[in-house]
């Protein structure tokens, strides 16, 4: 299995670091961290990203002068010709099952995982499947 380039967009640093470490060690994939929409676009356009794990709660994040959430950012990426093909998995601590459908529709993301992540193997499996599809 080829090592994938995962981009984790998460504003809580301890959580981001530990999540990245677990994905690296359990799945053998490279994980880059950021919470800046600008960096997300730059890395995606530069071909540095195979898949994005996106926290939907990104307080303070802005893109082109507008406050954006992870959901907004996901939608922006999916509507950008250069980044549209990159699969996105939403991560959220707002674990409301009822919101799952509307979140996926609004963000146009491919998959949805609740935080805390109970089953890293399932997450890694989803990452690999989405990239290979």
């Amino acid at each position, binding site marked *: 299995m080829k090592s994938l380039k995962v981009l984790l967009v998460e*504003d*809580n*640093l*301890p*959580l981001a*670091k*530990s*999540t990245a*470490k*677990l994905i690296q*060690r*359990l799945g053998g994939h490279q994980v880059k961290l950021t*919470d800046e929409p600008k960096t997300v676009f730059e890395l995606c356009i530069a071909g540095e990203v195979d898949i994005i794990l996106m926290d939907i*709660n*990104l*307080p*303070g*994040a802005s893109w082109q002068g507008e406050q954006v959430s992870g959901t907004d950012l996901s939608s922006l990426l999916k509507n950008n010709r250069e980044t549209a093909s990159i699969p996105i998995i939403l991560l*959220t*601590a*707002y*674990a*409301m099952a009822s919101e799952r459908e509307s979140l996926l529709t609004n963000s146009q993301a491919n998959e949805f995982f609740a*935080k*805390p*992540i109970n089953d*890293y193997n399932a997450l890694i499996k989803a990452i690999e499947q989405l990239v290979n599809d």
Partner: protein
Amino acid sequence: MREILDAAVTEVRAFLEIDRVKIYKFDEDGNGQVIAESINGDRLPSLKGLHFPAGDIPSQARELFLKARVRSIVDLEQQRISLTQPDRLPSTATDELTIEEVRQSSLNHLLQRPVDPCHVEYLTLMGVKFSMVVPLLNNGQLWGLLIAHHRRPKVISKSHLEIIQTVSEQLEMAIAHANLFISVQQKAQGEALINQISHLLHSPLENDKILPAVLAKIVPAIGGAGGLLCMNDTEQSEISCYQYGSLPNFSTSDWLQLQNLASNNNKVKVINNIEEQESIKILLPALKRNKLCSLLLMPLSYKQETLGNLAIFRHSIDTEKLWAGNHQEDERQLRPRQSFTEWKEHIQGKAQPWNSREIELIESLGNNLGIAVMQDRLYRQERKQRLLVEMQNQELENARKEAERASSLKSAFLSSSSHELRTPLASILNYLKLLKEGFYENEQELLEYIETAHLSAEHLHRIVDSILDIAKIEAGKMEVDLELFELEPLLMEECKFFQPETIRKDIKLIVDARVKSVYADKIKLKQVLSNLLNNAFKFTHEGEVKIGAITKNLNTSFGEKSVVEISLSDTGIGIEPDKQATIFDAFIQEDGSIRRRYGGTGLGLTICKQLIELMKGQISVFSEGRNRGTTITITLPKVEDK
């Protein structure tokens, strides 16, 4: 009417070829006035317009007129009196008779008496030798007299007498018609007035606008000088009085004295002369100063309920009356007066009595007024009930909205809580998993993982504590123990606690307490101040933090109020104006970058606000903007040292 009478006297005089024919009309007092007259040149002096006192024609004589119809004294010297029925012998001697005797005795008996010597002298003084008197009746009452005088004795033939009798009957009919016409006219006027007032009463205005207008209409229409309308309020406790016209400035309680005079049976009480009313004695001088003399009192009621009273006052008047001779010189009328030359009597302060038509009108108006007031009262009660129901519905609706709002706030809080709890929990679980899987390169990394997991656990603990605090406050389970205590020692304690911080960050902490004591929960105020100072030091990188306390006077809608104002100012990062409104809401920090750089649960200020409000105080934030410092102001009620 005038013309008919004038024509009648002229025709009768010409027909009888006689010196004087006049029509004499009785007034309410029994006095009379010559209202029509025809004289032959200057053979006899004119008496037109002159009044004659009641005593000139004693009541027995008047009773006799009703009984005997036409009577004439044909020759005064021979004392011959003739009647329409010629077989009867004449007499006008009345002085020893009573009215009862006149009524009981037969006409024959009455007429067989000689002419009263007093009457003989009376006629002689008038220069009259022949006199014929025809009573004019209206409604069975003596209305007036048709009188013929001649300087010389004269005999009137039977046929002439019969014609005169017929003329007098025609005159009576004309008088009856004229009176009927007047009363119909008055009735129409009365009805027009009632209509106008009904119209007013049913206009869509409030009663306190309608009633004065109604009063202003009734008083002049009834010939009153002033009117007063006192209405008991619905609750019976208050009385509203409306005044119209020239009335003294009495207080409501004075006017209420008048109400005692009113009758209890929906009937008008007529007082023609107020001076006779003992019970309103103390009101009399002022009423008399206003020349008020007569009074009408109409109780306003509907069924058994008394609604108020309508009082209408009339002025007394000063008049002049022309009498035929001064009859007051000899009040006993033992002898007839010696002269019939005009004598002018000045009558002062004469009451103007109310007549039956006016009384009837007022009764009718009073009934209408009572019904209208009752209707208005019922309408207002009904409206009050309706408003009450509407208000209750509105309250229920507000309560429902409030409950919905609280419920949605709770859901939002729950959702936020869940998120805020899950983030550190996810961190802890991640690090524990890293440790469990042995995913660390060296001991330093191992220690770092443990340390981070521990920090996250502590953070989680703080959030759980805060959430529990908020839940407790919102459930009303948080109790405050309010007491009066000295503020300065508390502030100094805080100073001491934050001293390491002032040294570490090189920020001064200044305390300026100009308030001796404060009424609050000591422990919870300390918790709030610690929290705020913690924020102040956290968000300030240079400069100073200052705590001040002053007494301040606030102008509230309940008047001036003293409060204790504690303010915490820093020279820190400040808050953008548009973020200041939500800064006290749960889980709100100014923005995410604040959270990343400064941490915190986002619940500190929420708890501060709730605690201060529990202590009956208020908390507010002010900042001129980014990097321009922040001031948090707490106001607590001022309670004086006992």
